[in-house]
């Protein structure tokens, strides 16, 4: 969040909270917490996801939160949950223990393609909203499902661009376009964005934000890549507001009259 008195232009607003950045970053898959921290800083993101896992009491290990900037809001996810019930359990555990009552809702029964369960996700979303959570559900870009999630009170919808970690980009762009057109809550494109141009394209289409993890963490230079994504998200957003030209036929950039050879 920006410093007091420093008004952000065109902020991302989720559940009435303002964010100065439209890039959300996941913390998974980095070689070290130090690199993760530097990438988060370079990205200027203000909302980062974390998973919730049992502590391995023999192994110890460091606390990830100590590597995260203080101005960043932690967004726990329900990864690992295969049913609504399991997702609710994780969310409640996270909140009880002092994490924010914001939850990235993932209900994923399929270990191969990591695609979410629409029915269980909807069920969990309704229960979590009822229980006071700010719910950001991860879903296929299914416009009808998105409307139902909105209806039960979700704060965003988070349609996937392509399977998690695949880096394949906006393979489902036709559906995402419809989700964006019909949504009344912010649309955060999540999963599958493999490069800054993918993120820029999502923003140009009118997405309100994007969430990126693997593409940054698995770059040769994650910190530079985080910065590149930051620029691309800003570029895409600015282009969306500036009005992207439509596709058309060929049209000369130089004037047809007064050409020299035509003398």
């Amino acid at each position: 969040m920006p410093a007091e008195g420093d008004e952000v232009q065109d902020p991302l607003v989720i559940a009435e909270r303002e964010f100065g950045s439209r890039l959300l970053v996941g913390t998974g898959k980095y070689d070290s917490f130090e690199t993760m921290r530097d990438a988060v800083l370079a990205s200027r993101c203000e909302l980062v996801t974390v998973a919730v896992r049992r502590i391995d009491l023999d192994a110890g290990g460091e606390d990830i939160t100590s590597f995260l900037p203080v101005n960043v809001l932690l967004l726990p996810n329900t990864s690992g949950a295969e049913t609504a019930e399991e997702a609710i359990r994780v969310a409640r555990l996270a909140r009880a223990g002092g994490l924010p009552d914001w939850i990235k809702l993932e209900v994923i029964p399929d270990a191969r393609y990591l695609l979410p369960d629409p029915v269980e996700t909807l069920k969990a979303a309704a229960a979590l909203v009822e229980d006071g959570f700010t719910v950001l559900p991860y879903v296929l870009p299914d416009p009808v499902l998105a409307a139902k999630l909105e209806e039960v009170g979700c704060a965003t919808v988070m349609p996937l661009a392509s399977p998690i970690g695949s880096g394949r980009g906006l393979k489902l762009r036709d559906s995402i376009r419809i989700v964006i057109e019909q949504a009344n809550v912010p649309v955060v494109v999540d999963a599958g964005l493999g490069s800054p141009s993918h993120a820029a394209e999502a923003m140009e289409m009118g997405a309100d934000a994007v969430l990126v993890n693997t593409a940054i963490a698995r770059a040769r230079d994650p910190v530079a890549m985080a910065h590149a994504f930051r620029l691309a998200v800003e570029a895409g957003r600015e282009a969306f507001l500036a009005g992207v030209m439509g596709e058309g036929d060929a049209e000369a950039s130089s004037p047809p009259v007064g050409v020299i050879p035509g003398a």
Partner: protein
Amino acid sequence: MNAVCIVNGKDHSLEAGETVERLLARLGLEGGYALVERNGEPVERSEYREVELRDGDRIIVARPVAGG
């Protein structure tokens, strides 16, 4: 014989009147976010100091980790 609870699948001998807070201290988890579930129900952080563990309790101690 001591009371014993199960923490993340392993036996843990309880001290008399051991609270969640004490448990975490004994596990070396004072700082940071330690999330605690007792018998399938989450324990509120504000109650770590009061809630006492009982013989046979199934405890999960979790925390935020790297994830996307």
